[in-house]
């Protein structure tokens, strides 16, 4: 089952010449194998994206419930903290007997890791709305629904986005481990080349995973600025 066992002992040089076995990184080899890395990169993106979206779909409503019913908070935090603390690889492997080998198992585990941060940050954001802002909105004649949609939720957005940012890079990081149980993402190449003396494969997969995380991080930062323009407004006056 382990992909590691399927890797060739001698690297597959393909048509490429000019690469030496002890070289740190060989561009020609990388260019030759780009198709494989590109395919894994695309998989990595959607494996991560599915987990993050499902995490949001679960955590945001849960935070809203806990905001209205505070006694719901402690059980939700305990549950998501336990999920968060299980070693992800153990989580993956233990799920196999239940959900089988495949994408479903990977997503269950990855979603489990997104919940704590998304839930806690959203709840913190919802609770950070200044009481006088709520008082003014109520006194002006906004209905509770309008206050939630127009005031409370937009004001919670910076905290939600901060959580989303950490969750995104964490999920991309954890998704590299998915390859241990099913052939998805850049983890495949890492595990495939890990016992190999020709290290360009390892470096390529590792660097691509890092670049993906950094690009995703930058995109979330950009998105945050776009959706919370007021947060950059300079503090002035009393």
């Amino acid at each position: 089952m382990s992909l590691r066992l399927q890797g060739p002992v001698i690297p597959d040089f393909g048509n490429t010449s000019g690469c030496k076995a002890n070289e740190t990184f060989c561009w020609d080899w990388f260019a030759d194998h780009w198709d494989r890395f590109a395919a894994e990169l695309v998989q990595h993106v959607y494996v991560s994206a599915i987990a993050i979206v499902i995490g949001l779909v679960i955590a945001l409503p849960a935070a809203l419930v806990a905001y209205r019913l505070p006694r719901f908070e402690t059980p939700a935090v305990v549950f998501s903290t336990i999920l968060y603390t299980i070693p992800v690889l153990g989580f993956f492997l233990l799920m196999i007997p239940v959900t089988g080998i495949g994408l479903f198992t990977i997503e269950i585990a990855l979603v489990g890791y997104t919940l704590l941060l998304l839930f806690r940050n959203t709840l913190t954001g919802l609770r950070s709305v200044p009481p006088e802002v709520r008082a003014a909105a109520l006194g002006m004649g906004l209905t509770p629904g309008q206050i939630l949609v127009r005031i409370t939720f937009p004001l919670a957005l910076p905290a939600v986005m901060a959580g989303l940012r950490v969750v995104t890079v964490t999920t991309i990081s954890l998704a590299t481990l998915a390859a241990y149980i099913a052939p998805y993402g850049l983890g495949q190449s890492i595990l495939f080349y890990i016992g190999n003396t020709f290290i360009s494969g390892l470096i390529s997969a590792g660097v691509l995973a890092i670049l993906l995380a950094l690009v995703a991080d930058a995109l979330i930062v950009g998105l945050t600025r776009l959706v919370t323009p007021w947060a950059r407004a300079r503090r002035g006056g009393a």
Partner: protein
Amino acid sequence: MVLVDAWRFVADNPARVLGDIAGQLVLSLVSVVIAIAIAVPLGAAIGHTRRFALLAVNGANVLRALPTLAIIAIGIGLYGVGFINIMVALVILALPLILTNTYVGVAEVEPGTVEAARGMGMTGWQILTQVELPHAVPLIMAGIRTGTVFVIATAYLAGTAGYPHTLGSVITNPTLPVSQLLAYTVIAVLLAFAVDGLLLIVQRAVTPAGMKIVPVTAA
């Protein structure tokens, strides 16, 4: 029955299990201590002087974005497998959390408090050690706590990094029976919670009286 098998595996191999737990703890401890040794002085210096703050914050965010397995993979290429490889990956995991919290804790001391300290004739060093750092203790401890839990929960990747004397000897080996996997996964979770609880007690003990414990999220 998987649970029975898991328990039997632990009961039958006490030396191995305890050895792997000890290995995991030592690896984590060394990594966290190195991360503290780098992050606390650096964060304190940046917070006190307020120079390079943007660089530090962005640098920390970049470090936080690095996938651990990718660091291990690149590390194998650059400096080979073994203790150093997994340790570097774990230091990189813990460092940004402790750095950011130290910086924020020191930088967010009320300007009035610092001015009062300066007005009383305290030197920069005295302000840092007697005013700013004590104020930052809850945040620094929170960063160390979160960082340590992250490190302990990730240290099993030592198995992938070619250092087998940890819980990773089982967890990173998918060919082993599910019962062993279950046993080690449960041990890993319990270890993380135990260390978290221990550090919470330490945090309360070292927080100066009169300073409320500031709840800090990892985010």
